[in-house]
């Protein structure tokens, strides 16, 4: 299955009433990639919503691209033997395999053990690809040196205020797919007021969010976005009738100021 160019994230959307119709809207706009995590508490709802969709539309599991994560507390509790937690997640998602399983935060203790377990699950076919989330180049080098296994995917916070060029270059050099969460930086004021983004959005008659998402795609990154509004979901998928020039990409890159919404060390002490 081809990797999707857009993925729908489910962080902070755990309203049961809205969830199923939201997933349906997402699917209808052409998105097939879905991202969840035990800590988002959306696994079960996502499993239910996709099962319902599969029955109603008569579509198979492989029409979707489903990715989940292993949380730090699971690594700590199991000392890296995370297989039972994966089983539990598969049960909640009502599927027998995951397209990608990420280590949510690279807690140094038990990371290698977790990584080896994930690799075994990949060999068994329970996981199609393994990934690391919230990592930098030094983490990738370290895991490569210590286990000899690089991830197939990484997922990091990336947006114009944090362009992560080192990680992009590393991933290109090692054939790793890079996904960006918080791709719009929650529409930070500094982005909304940016003259660069305003000018580009006027040129292409798109909104600033669409320009930023296109910037991700044009730099080889898969954005993982979330919106509860149907109109916004549709807008965010309407990106494939234009592309940015190299100059425009470089201008957007200049907005970088190393701003992270999710402060890494607070979410993962000792990262």
């Amino acid at each position, binding site marked *: 299955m081809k990797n999707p160019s857009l993925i729908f994230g489910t962080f902070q959307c755990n309203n049961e009433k809205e969830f199923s119709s939201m997933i349906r809207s997402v699917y209808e706009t052409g998105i097939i990639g879905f991202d969840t995590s035990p800590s988002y508490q959306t696994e079960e709802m996502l499993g239910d919503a996709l099962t319902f969709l599969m029955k109603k539309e008569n579509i198979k599991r492989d029409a979707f691209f489903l990715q989940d994560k292993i949380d730090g507390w699971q690594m700590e509790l199991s000392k890296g033997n995370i297989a039972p937690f994966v089983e539990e997640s598969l049960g909640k998602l009502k599927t027998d395999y995951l397209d990608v399983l990420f280590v949510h935060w690279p807690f140094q203790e038990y990371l290698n053990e977790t990584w080896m377990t994930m690799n075994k699950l990949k060999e068994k076919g329970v996981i199609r690809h393994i990934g690391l989330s919230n990592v930098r180049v030094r983490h990738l080098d370290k895991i490569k040196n210590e286990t000899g296994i690089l991830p197939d995917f990484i997922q990091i916070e990336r947006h114009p205020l944090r362009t992560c060029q080192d990680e992009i270059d590393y991933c290109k050099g090692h054939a790793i797919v890079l996904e960006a969460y918080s791709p719009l930086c929650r529409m930070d004021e500094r982005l909304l007021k940016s003259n660069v983004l305003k000018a580009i959005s006027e040129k292409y008659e798109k909104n600033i969010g669409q320009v930023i998402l296109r910037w991700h795609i044009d730099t080889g990154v898969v954005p993982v976005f979330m919106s509860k509004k149907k109109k916004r979901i549709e807008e965010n998928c309407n990106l494939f009738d234009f592309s940015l020039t190299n100059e425009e990409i470089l201008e957007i890159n200049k907005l970088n*100021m190393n701003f992270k919404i999710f402060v890494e*060390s607070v979410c993962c002490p000792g990262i």
Partner: protein
Amino acid sequence: MLSWNLNKKEAVGTVLVAFFCICMLNVVYFYCVPSCMVCVIGYASNKVLRKKIRLANKNIIDFMNDSRRNFDNLILGDTRLALVEDSSKSLYFVHRGRTLFASYLYLIHYFSYLRDDGEGKVYVYSSQSDEDSMYVSIFDIFAYHRVVRMRLNATSQMIDRFPLFFYFKRFRNIHYFIDGRKLSVEDRIIEFCNLRNIKVELIRK
């Protein structure tokens, strides 16, 4: 004869009731009143302690709603010794009597708030020797991540609700560091900062 018997029974009954009331008053006075007082004092002290803990961690940033990042300095350790000039570009996590181990844990939690161009600097103030400092106090525990609290055996909800019971507790885990290396906390702080391109100054007195 009958009325005499009745009067006698009434009198005995009255005496018994009076005796019972006196006993109850005794119980109330010597047990319930002090118990209630202990509860009220305990409740108030717990509330005061929770306020003090909040105050000790007042500089924790709610990163979802507060965009402050890229600080020049991260200042950790024992307040009595923290003498760095105040600056809006410094982030403080200092508290009286904070151990070096507790400061190490603050460091690994909050270093990402520093600028990452190699110019960020950490100051760690401590007045205790490594041997004495492998614990954290109730004032520190609330600033730590769930996984770190798991390692310190401090995940009980009792700790969050009734910190007063844990006022004298020293949260520790002799197996906290699982890498098997016999490094002092001071060496770990230096190594940690060097690996992340952060300047560090340890000030011990």
